[in-house]
């Protein structure tokens, strides 16, 4: 094959340097991830100062998982959905209704029945957790028709239709649809017999488990052909369609997957709360908080949503604890929002990566790779909207 003569190929050493740097980063990342996992597992029992902090950690993990799940759809396809609270609330209500209907978990009067599942003996307090995946499935079933309808629209209309769907569900819950939700009075969950400080631990680990699953799913998708199709949709949907990507199915599948995880989170949250009511299960702020976390960390990246959650959720909890839901809290939170959006439009991870690649490029003198005869003046990585690249630097 004839190659384009005037392309200057980099000197072998330079390429090697890049290659070995990439391998080093990969190893560092795996080690780092394992270390984080160990810390996360030990946190509630060994590292957490008090129960309140563990409580905050539960919510932080929940939002980290929610943001990761949301990112699977919105980050990869570029369709901003602002109605995922529908799935959160549906999951919560689904779990509550199931526990009630099938008498799962401890009843208020104590002494609920233990669960015998195949050969496993599950104490009554833990039984509701077994149903959590089912709550996720119910949420994803709801996502199918909703997604099908919403995905017939694009961009701005899509955003608004997801918001509209959210309000429909909130109203349906308030109006006690099919006598399931108990309307404004809310739904009661079984109360576990645990005491503090232990009480937070099972919920903490449940949220952590869902986060790990969501992250794994996100990673898998990102590296699969399917995920590539999603990213192509984000960049130029019609072009992707014209190249054979099954855009409609791809989008819907991503939507349903993200709903599944969010639904599970809702279920665990409901059990954690003990009782739920429509304005809390279907919270208008939910989606915006999740979206902000994903944006702040870096939309479309793997670590971004988690980073965003780690920063924003403890902050928010802190504010609510010390300032209550008063005007101050809203003002400061809103101002924080603004600052983040205006100063860090790409998000933390992509910005860090940008700096990292500049550093590498200057070190390994890779400036000349990009140029061909027309391009001498554009030497150096001119980074524009750099999203995840498949190989190499990959968070």
């Amino acid at each position, binding site marked *: 094959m004839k190659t384009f003569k005037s392309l200057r190929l980099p000197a072998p050493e330079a390429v090697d340097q890049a290659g070995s740097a990439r391998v080093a980063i990969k190893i560092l990342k795996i080690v780092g991830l394992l270390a984080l996992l160990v810390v996360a597992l030990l946190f509630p029992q060994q590292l957490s100062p008090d129960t309140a902090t563990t409580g905050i950690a539960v919510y932080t993990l929940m939002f980290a998982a929610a943001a990761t799940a949301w990112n699977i759809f919105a980050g990869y396809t570029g369709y*901003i959905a*602002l109605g995922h609270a529908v799935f959160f609330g549906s999951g919560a209500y689904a779990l509550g209704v199931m526990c009630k209907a099938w008498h799962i978990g401890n009843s208020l009067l104590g002494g609920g029945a233990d669960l015998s599942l195949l050969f496993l003996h599950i104490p009554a307090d833990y039984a509701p957790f077994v149903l959590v995946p089912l709550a996720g499935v119910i949420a994803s079933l709801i996502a199918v028709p909703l997604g099908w*309808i919403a995905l*017939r*629209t*694009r*961009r*701005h*209309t899509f*955003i*608004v*239709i997801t*918001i*509209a*769907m959210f*309000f*429909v569900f909130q*109203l*349906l819950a308030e*109006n006690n649809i099919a006598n399931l939700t108990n309307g404004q009075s809310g739904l009661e969950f079984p109360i576990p017999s645990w005491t503090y400080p232990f009480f937070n631990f099972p919920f903490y680990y449940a949220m952590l488990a869902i986060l790990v699953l969501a992250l794994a799913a996100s990673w898998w998708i990102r590296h699969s052909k399917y995920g590539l199709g999603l990213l192509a949709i984000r960049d*130029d949907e*019609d072009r992707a369609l014209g190249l054979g990507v099954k855009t409609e199915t791809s989008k819907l599948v991503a939507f349903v997957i993200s709903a599944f995880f969010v639904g599970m989170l809702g279920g665990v949250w409901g059990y954690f709360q003990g009782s739920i009511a429509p304005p809390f299960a279907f919270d*208008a702020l939910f989606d*915006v908080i999740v*979206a*902000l976390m994903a*944006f702040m960390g870096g939309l479309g990246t793997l670590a971004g949503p988690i980073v965003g959650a780690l920063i924003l959720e403890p902050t928010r909890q802190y504010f609510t604890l010390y300032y209550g839901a*008063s*005007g*101050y*809290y*809203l*003002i*400061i*939170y*809103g*101002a924080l*929002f*603004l600052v983040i*959006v*205006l100063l860090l*439009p790409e998000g933390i991870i992509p910005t860090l990566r940008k700096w990292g690649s500049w550093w590498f490029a200057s070190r390994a003198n890779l400036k000349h790779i990009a140029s061909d005869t027309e391009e001498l003046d554009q030497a150096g990585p001119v980074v524009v*909207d750099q999203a995840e690249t498949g190989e190499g630097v990959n968070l």
Partner: protein
Amino acid sequence: MTIYIEAIVTGLLSGGVYALMASGLTLIFGVMEIINIAQGALVVLGAYLSYALQHYFHIDLFLGLLLTMPLMFVFGVLIEWAFIRPLKRERTMFSILVTFAIALIIEGVLGLIFTTNLVTLHAWYITASIPVGGFYLPYIYVFGFALSVILLGGLYWLLYRTEFGKSLRASMQNRTAAELIGINVERVSAITFGIGIALTAAGGMAFGTTVPFNPGSSYDLISRLLVVIVLGGMGSLRGALVASLALLVIEDVTSVAWSPVWASTVFFVLLVLLLIFRPQGLFGQREGRKQ
């Protein structure tokens, strides 16, 4: 039968007020391609301004508009200049987050100043009513509708009979082309935003007379306004008007015919149904393929 007529009439009249609030929103979208989530909060702000003028200075609500509208216009221009203009990439997306943040701040500030207690606006024409046909129609509905007609008429005149209006419509159709022929699109955007917010001052006043409100009322409002502009077709003023009227009438009639509880749900369900068959809304453009 009379109750249905009453429902239709009040629906039309309050629809006019909604059209006022929605027009600003759809206009801003049409020219700047941004979705102003703060519209609901700004309406509430307008309502509170009218309330403050009336409660502390005893200025009549309609006269107060002469103060609140210019004030809100300036406020709108400032918001645009400070927070919207810096957005370069993916403006629509970021504008949602930015305007949401602004909405939160407004809500917080209002909560601090006025507390979260519900307030209503008072005037003789709110409680007094005029007998029409078989029912009594509060004067405020008629005045509010008249206000909408005047302001929307004024907006129409501005858009179709002035040079500025031409620039605005050009920017709406093709931003780049407008820039190329010498239209200062940034200035047009700022002024358009200002106009959109000034309209919320009036809308807020009218809104405040019909229903008790507090800083938290903005959520319900913005969701309804968004539904209206999507139903009408984003960027279409005609659509905003038709959609406002249609939805308010349907809501009021449902409330009477069936139950008030389901009235607002019907609102949203109809939107979803329409969008299944016509994703671009009543008068909107089909979001199509590039090239």
